[in-house]
């Protein structure tokens, strides 16, 4: 998450004459671990999109005669208690993880940024009310908050996305507010106000675009966290309903057969770790490439 020392080299990497995008690519490419993370993410996206073509078996097809088989050539990772192919279920689980991760971070970023923008821009009582509510939200552990909201809304994947998103609001609101407070002081904002620009226009056209870099970094780094939280919720039993495949739920299902078929829990858990690691490594790279000064801040 945090690596505070921006050395001189990091700043020199921003050389004149190249576009910001070219610079981004160049620095990111220089971080081999980040490229490794990005490559894993790319492979996962391909797997998620083409799951029906890649999976060797139907992930939902029960076959009680083949229940709890050891890994073999027919079933590379064996079968679960219902005789379903584990590898195929893991492949379909990629879809759940990526979809929940992306959408919940989207929900959290959108809500949190809006709230932070309003608070930072208007200040005063609006700001105080918003920030105190954010403090209150922050006193409830995100997982517990998501669990309670998820239960209140009723299970299902959509509701898990919403509840995880709500649990992410505080981080975005705080970072956004800090950014707005800084940008708001800039001369060009005063200038627009002097020629009579209205609040909505100033916020959306003049302030918002200049606050984005740290938020983009935050979004990338949050994807891993969100996927981990989704796995935790589905481990607890909230989220996709059977026979749908989610890695966290698979770890839990396998827990009962730990002594006889440990692979039932081991394999999906390993996938969770790999995905989260990939997103974190890539996120660190995006931060370094976008703005090395953000080390230590995010």
């Amino acid at each position, binding site marked *: *998450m945090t690596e505070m020392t921006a050395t001189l080299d990091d700043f020199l990497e921003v050389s004149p004459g190249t576009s910001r995008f070219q610079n981004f690519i160049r620095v990111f490419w220089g971080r081999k671990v980040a490229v490794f993370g990005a490559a894993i993410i790319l492979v996962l996206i391909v797997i998620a999109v083409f799951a029906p073509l890649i999976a060797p078996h139907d992930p939902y097809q029960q076959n009680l005669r083949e229940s709890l088989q050891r890994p073999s050539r027919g079933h590379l990772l064996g079968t679960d208690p219902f005789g379903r192919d584990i590898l195929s279920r893991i492949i379909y689980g990629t879809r759940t993880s990526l979809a929940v991760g992306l959408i919940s971070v989207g929900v959290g970023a959108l809500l949190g940024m809006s709230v932070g923008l309003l608070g930072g821009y208007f200040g005063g009582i609006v700001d105080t009310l918003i920030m105190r509510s954010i403090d*209150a939200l922050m006193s*409830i552990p995100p997982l517990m908050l998501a669990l309670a909201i998820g239960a209140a809304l009723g299970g299902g994947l959509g509701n898990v996305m919403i509840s995880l998103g709500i649990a992410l609001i505080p981080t975005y609101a705080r970072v956004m507010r800090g950014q707005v407070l800084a940008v708001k002081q800039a001369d060009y904002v005063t200038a627009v106000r002097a020629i009579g620009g209205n609040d909505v226009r100033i916020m959306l056209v003049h302030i918002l675009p200049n606050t984005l870099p740290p938020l983009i970094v935050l979004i990338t780094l949050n994807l891993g966290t969100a996927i981990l939280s989704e796995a935790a919720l589905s481990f607890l039993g909230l989220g996709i309903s059977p026979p749908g495949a989610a890695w966290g739920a698979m*770890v839990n299902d396998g827990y009962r057969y730990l002594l006889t078929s440990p692979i039932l829990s081991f394999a999906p858990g390993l996938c969770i770790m790999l995905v989260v690691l990939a997103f974190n490594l890539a996120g660190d790279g995006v931060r370094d490439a976008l703005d090395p000064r953000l080390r230590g801040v995010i």
Partner: protein
Amino acid sequence: MAKFILRRLIQTVIVIVLVSLIAFSILHMMPGDPVLIILGEEASQAQIDTLRHELGLDQPVLVQYMRWFTNMLQGDFGRSILYHRDVADLIATRLPITLHLGLIAFILSALIGIPAGVLSAVRRGDFLDSLITVSANIGIAVPMFWLGILGIYLFALKLAWLPVQGYTSPFDDFWLNTKQLIMPATCLTVVPVAVLARQTRSSMLEVLQQDYIRTARSKGLRERAVIMGHGLKNAIIPVVTLLGLQARYLVGGSILVETVFNIPGMGRLMVHGVFNQDFVIVQAGIIVIGIVVALANLAVDISYGCLDPRIRYDDR
């Protein structure tokens, strides 16, 4: 300093009131009518009306909230629908277990994470640094519940060194309690250790480049005194912030660890409450945990003010 503490105290009270509002409003969206959950589907209309009146659910929402909140201030959290017991009693038996586990994990993470970060920064670029950095990256990504299951498989089922799961009070059998807590505490500790090690490392690297470190070295101080006295002392503040944030992580993580290791703490109680639609338990659980976290943050803020006088004046 007294003014600083007072201001923080007032803020904490406001936060706790807001947490209670959040807890109350979330659970009012819960599916299913609590009265029907208690009485069952075959209850007569008269029974339903009576119970609804007894629980105060026929009152306006604002009145319900005020009543719930004032009762809570007097230590009355209501009766659990699931356990048919006072929720205050349930919390009184379960909160100490979660706090016990959380405190062990909290101390362990500071004791391991901070020295690991210092070591990593001092040995920048060599093998030990790479090892610590890589381990920290993996530690942040590993799902805690899965790590617990791996641990149970290896240390309990295969090697039989530790009990599989459960919780015994340390006052009944201290040795068994210790053995039962080794794995859950380790699982809870992994992420905080990783996070703290990373923050300490980068914060130390930043500080070690400063001029006063060079001055300290050039006046002939021993390296140990330079690192600990001048380096760590200045690098520790962002680490303390992060340490404070771990409180809510540890309480949140207790949900998972208590589920995996079958420990009857607050996390387990919350999960039971959520999945059995016992809104009384969930509401009380959220507010109690909110208070614990808010108080932990308050403690950190105050220690912060002691560590760095600038914070007392800056933060108006």
